[in-house]
Structures are given as C-alpha cells and as structure tokens.
C-alpha cells in the first residue's frame, strides 16, 4: 500500500470552501504521506491555492476536516479528538488545522509555507529574514525579552544557535555571500530560494510551497529539484507543493493529486497520473468520448 494511505502526515477529508455562491473547493479528500513530496496540480482556477490557504489557516474552510498527525500512532485518536471539539490532542502530536488560526498552525502544528507572489521582508537583510523566521525559538531563548533586555548569557547562546541554523540554510541556498544585503536587492530566483530557506528556518514538519518554480529558468528549476530532494532526504519533514512546471512535478514528486473545478480528478504516483485520461482531458479540454483518441495520440 502506498505511504500516503498507510501513514499520512496530512489528511484532508470532505474539504469544502465556498465564497458566496462560488464553490472553490468541493468535497475534496486527499492524503499526503509522511516524508513524501506531494504535488497538488491542476489547471488555473482549479482551487489549489485555496486548498493551501485552508491548510495553513489563512482561510477557514466551510466544511471538512484537515488533520495533521506528527506520528503514526496519534492518528488512531483522530475521531476521539474531533469529538472533544478541541484543536488537537493534548500531547501535541495531532492537530485539527481547520479549527486553528494561521499563527497557531505555524507555531504549534509546525506548518510553514511560501507564497505564489514572493513575500519576503524586503527592507531587512537576508540574514534578518532568516532570524525573523526563528522568532518563537528566539522569544523563548530571550525569556520573552526580559532575559534579552538584561543581556544574559542564556539568550546569547540562543542567538548563536539561531545564527548557526541561518548559516546552514544560507549555505544550502548559496546566499552566504549576500547575507548582509537587503532581500529586495536579490535577483528573482534567489528570492525564491531565500523564501524556502526562511520557511525551513522555522523547522517545519510540513512544508507547503506555492509554485516554487514559477519564474525560474530551466537551470534554476533543476537546482530547485535537487534542493527539494535534499530537504526531503536529510530533514525530517514532508513537502506539499503546488506547481505548474511539470518538469519539476514529475521528477521529484512521490505522489500527485490532480484538482479540477475544486474536485479531485486523479490521485497516485507520477506514472499513474501521467497516463490518467481524466487528467489529460482536464488539461487539454476534450470531451470524455474523445479521451481515448487523445491518449493514443499523446503516447504515440
């Protein structure tokens, strides 16, 4: 059995999001496996970013359940926790994201995200961006500013640790030389990399990337592929990404979910999805009756 069914970190059930009369996401179910790179694809307007915003708490879904299980055992408690009406299990291994505001999803459930239109702190330096991402860690280290104001050594140790983490990610995204430059001064591709590094500095368990390859040239896309694979293989986290660049999606994804008009039309490994006639129909826009012919033409 595939990992997303046997051990999902994220399970989305009956997710529906309505904006007035518009149904952006309609009764959507899917899972993302622990340690997998899961891609969410679909034509423009399929509702991908809406799903992202529901998972990260920027939207409150109209209906449905979004469960994040930080280990396999806690999934068994899902229905009990749901019945209690609380936001998650007391041991902080299971969270019901649809009940939590965005800040808590990032802070407690450890879900980090990037944005389709890059959102860096432009007037702050590259290094500062990475330090801001470690806000909650540094807040604790600074004794909620009291210890930090007094300049005690415990805070200095915390800062040193945060700086080390920032340097590690600066090295990974090849921005060490530009650490003291303002983030707005970076070229576009570097800004994309910095945004991912910033999300990683928050030490997430689930990393959500909204079109990370948009606007990158082919070489940069290839670098991004290697970088995402490096993250998956060397860090204990799962990645959920929205992407239009099929080169990226097919190469690095372990699992692909295809959306169209807010509904899931296909779900499986890259090979399964690539040959699914419904996916081809959704992307190329043909009648159901013609799917077979189109499919033959493509594979020929």
């Amino acid at each position: 059995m595939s990992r997303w069914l046997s051990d999902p970190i994220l399970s989305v059930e009956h997710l529906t999001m309505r904006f007035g009369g518009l149904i952006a996401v309609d009764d959507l179910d899917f899972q993302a496996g622990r340690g997998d790179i899961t891609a969410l694809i679909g034509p423009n307007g399929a509702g991908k970013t809406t799903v992202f915003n529901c998972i990260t708490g920027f939207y409150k879904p109209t209906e449905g359940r979004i469960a994040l299980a930080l280990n396999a055992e806690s999934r068994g408690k899902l229905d009990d926790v749901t019945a209690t009406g609380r936001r998650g299990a007391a041991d902080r291994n299971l969270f019901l994201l649809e009940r939590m505001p965005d800040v808590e999803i990032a802070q407690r459930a450890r879900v980090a995200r990037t944005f389709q239109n890059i959102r860096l702190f432009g007037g702050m330096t590259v290094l500062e961006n990475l330090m801001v991402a470690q806000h909650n860690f540094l807040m604790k280290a600074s004794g909620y500013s009291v210890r930090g104001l007094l300049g005690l050594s415990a805070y200095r140790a915390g800062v040193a640790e945060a700086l080390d983490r920032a340097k590690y990610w600066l090295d990974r995204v090849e921005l060490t030389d530009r650490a003291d430059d303002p983030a707005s001064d970076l070229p576009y591709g570097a800004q994309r990399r910095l945004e991912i590094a910033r999300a990683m500095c928050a030490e997430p368990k689930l990393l959500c990337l909204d079109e990370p390859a948009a606007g990158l040239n082919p070489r940069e896309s290839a670098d991004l592929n290697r970088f995402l694979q490096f993250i998956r293989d060397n860090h204990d986290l799962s990645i959920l990404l929205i992407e239009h660049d099929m080169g990226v999606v097919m190469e690095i994804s372990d699992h692909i979910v295809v959306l169209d008009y807010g509904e899931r039309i296909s779900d499986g490994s890259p090979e399964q999805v690539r040959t699914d006639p419904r996916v081809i129909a959704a992307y190329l826009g043909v009648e159901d009756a013609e799917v077979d012919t189109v499919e033959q033409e493509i594979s020929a």
Partner: protein
Amino acid sequence: MANSVPGGSALDTRPPGAEIEDENRDAAMAGEPPFKIHPTAKQDQLAAAIKEAAIAAVVTLALAGPLIGLKTEPAIGTLALEQRWLPVAVAVAIVFVGRLLLRLFVWRPRMPGPAAAWRSRLTVTLPPVTGRLAVGALFLVGLFLPFLVLGFFPAHSRQYVDLGVLILTYIMLGWGLNIVVGLAGLLDLGYVAFYAVGAYSYALIALHFGWSFWISLPVAGLLAALWGIALGFPVLRLRGDYLAIVTLAFGEIIRLVLINWQELTNGPVGLSRIPRPSFFGLEFTPGPGGFADYFGIEYKPIQRIIFFYYILFALALFTNFVTMRLRRLPVGRAWEALREDEIACRSLGINTTNTKLTAFAIGAMFGGFAGSFFATRQGFISPESFNFTESATILAIVVLGGLGSQIGIVISAVFLIGGIEMLRNIGFLTAIFGPGFDPTQYRLLIFGLAIVFIMVWRPRGLIATRLPSVFLKERRTVSGELVGEGRG
C-alpha cells in the same frame, strides 16, 4: 502538457537585468540637446559649437540682411534704398556668441535635470566613522549643554536650558512614537493621549497619595502602557487610514474625558501645585535645608532647571538604550517584519496580536514617562496641553527625522522645536523690510516652508537608511527606498 512552459505563469516578474537596461535607456534619453550631437572630446565639442553657431549666424544674416539691412526711404518722386549693415552685424554677432555660449555651457548633452543635480549635491553621504563621531558629539553637547549655555549665554541661560528641556521632552516622545510608527509601521495620530495619561497619573498620584517622583514615574509609565494596550485591542484589525482615524479619536476621547470628569481631573481648570522632584531629599528652595544651602553654594532658580534637564537626559538615555536593545531582540525584529509584511509574519508563526500590543504598550510607556516629567516640570497641567496639535508635532518629528531612525529624531526635534523658538529672534529682518514689518509674525510661515523644502529634498526623512539588527560579515545600511512604510 499544456502548462509545462517554464516561467509561463510568472508574467508579473521580469528577468534580472531588465531594470538595468531600462535605466540605461532612461539615462541615454535624459537631457537631450536640441540637436543630437554626441561629441567625444573637448575640441570636438568646441568645433561642433562653433559650427552650430556659424549656421545660426548664417540664418540670422539671411533673415536680418533684407529685413534690417535694407530700408526704403521716401525720396523726391521715388523710393531710395538705404543700406544699414552695422545693425545687421550686431544682430549676427549676438546670435553667434549667444548660440556658442548656450551650446557650450547650457545645452550640455546628457545633462541631468536640475532637480537631480541639486539632490546629488545636497545628499550627504557620511562614512560610518563620521556617523559615530556625530552621535558622540551630539551626546557630549547634550551632556554639557547647561554649562555651555551658562558659559556662553549667561543672559539667556534660563531660557535656553528651558528650551533644552523642551527639546529633550519631544525627543523622548518622538522615540516613543517611533516604536509604534517607525518600527511597527502602525500609524498613530493620538499619541498625545499617552502623554496625557502619564501627566495626569503622575499628578494625581503625587497629589493624593504623596508618593515621590521616583515611585510615581514608573507607575505613571505602567498606567500609560495599560492604556496603550487598551487602545491596541480595538485597532488590531485595522490598517492604514482606518487605524489613523481610530487613534485620532482615541486621543480626543482622552482629552474630552479629562475635561469632563471634573471630580477626578478638576476639568478644564486643570491640576496645579504638583510636587517637584527632590535631589535625594534636598528641595530646590532658598533658605536652610535646600540644595544650595546643603552644598554651601548660592541659591539660584536655574539650579532646579538644570536638575530637571539632567533627570530628563537620563530618562531619554534610558529610553534610547531600551529601544536600541529591543530592536535587536526577537520582539523588535518582529515589529520591523510586521511593518514589511504582516501576512508573511503570520505564516512564520509570529503572533501579530502580541507584537502589535507590545509596540503600543512600550511606545505608550515612554510617552507616559515624558508626560510625568512634563507634569512635574510645569507644576500645573490642564487638558489644553494635550490637543491634537501635540500629536501632529510628535508625528512630524518622527517623519522628518526618518521613520525608525533614533538619531534622525534627535536632529529633527532640535530643528522643529528649537527652530520654531529661535525664529523668535529674527528682529534683524526689520532692518531690511522697514519698521512696519514684524518678522516674528511670519515665524510659522517660514517654518512651514522649511519643512516642505526638507521633505521635498529628503522624502524619506533626514536619516532614511536603516541599520540591520544583525549581520554576518559587515553591517551595511539598507536604503530607505527598500524599507516598507507599513500599511497599518
């Protein structure tokens, strides 16, 4: 598949280098002379100018020859043609020389526009060492100001030290507001409310409970901070103009409550005989037991003013120390991140509610300190001292100094508060404009114009650069153009 075109969905972005090309294109188009000539060397330029002037002169000759050079004179029975070649020569010479000079000195190719030229001439770029020296010099002047004044202006010493106290009060208020507006990017038009809360808290505590200044001061600061949080809660969801209006209303509410709550605040009459702080128990009074008597020196009223000056100087240093320290702590960095992008902050798990509330509370606390000091210095307070004009003045100090810049606020407070007082001494202008002219009446007009010019010259304030809170190799300033202004 259909969507596999790389970069196809990023129409809003441009490749790096596109901007540089644009700039080059703009630079090439700037300051074109009427004729497109691109001389390479000076001789070429001169030759081209002479050639151009000669062409102009020939054209002038062709026109002026018949029009000026030939004149018909009525003669007997017929018309005689009179020839006047001297005026023609003069006209041609004027055109030749004029064109030559214009071409050589005015119509320079690629001459930047006058505004840009002025700006580049006026932009002061100081090396970091000079910046530190300037800060040190400002500190030393501040530290010894009362004695400098006593030494150099004994006749005006009281007036000038008092002015120094006033400027320091505004520097403190500016620094307090800077946390809210400059760092957190939350536009607050009702900052004077916290100044008022601090002043009334101190006055009421001192009058009713008889607590000393040094105990009442932190209490008043804490009360102001509480009111900062009280204001913060309802405005958490508001941004930009809406936030500004609500804070403005908050300032007015506080003032109206002070006017109407007669039992507590004594209404528009205000509170008087507010106790003065003592120097370790020594009062600044003549006679035995006073400060002068204890130290065996002659009693002078200015001793108390100098004492006030140093209390406030210490308070301001404390304010600055705390603010600079907070900027390097996670909470300060979160303020600035909030100003840059609130949504990104939330995606990183930064509690924006707490961050905003701490900014309001700490900014309000410093305002409360300044208010307590104001109450004890004046010995009398009334709601009239806390109207909207005060809020606007403090905000003007912060904006003129450069949002977020501590030293910029010092400079702009000295300029704004000191300048407006110093403009009282422009009586000498009467000598120029005649006795019927009273220059002091135009004080505010002159002052307003000066502010307009400064803002045109430096749209982001006097000190527009931002100093990063942490660095890896070297601390480089960030240009003000990149720094966000906050949208609420």
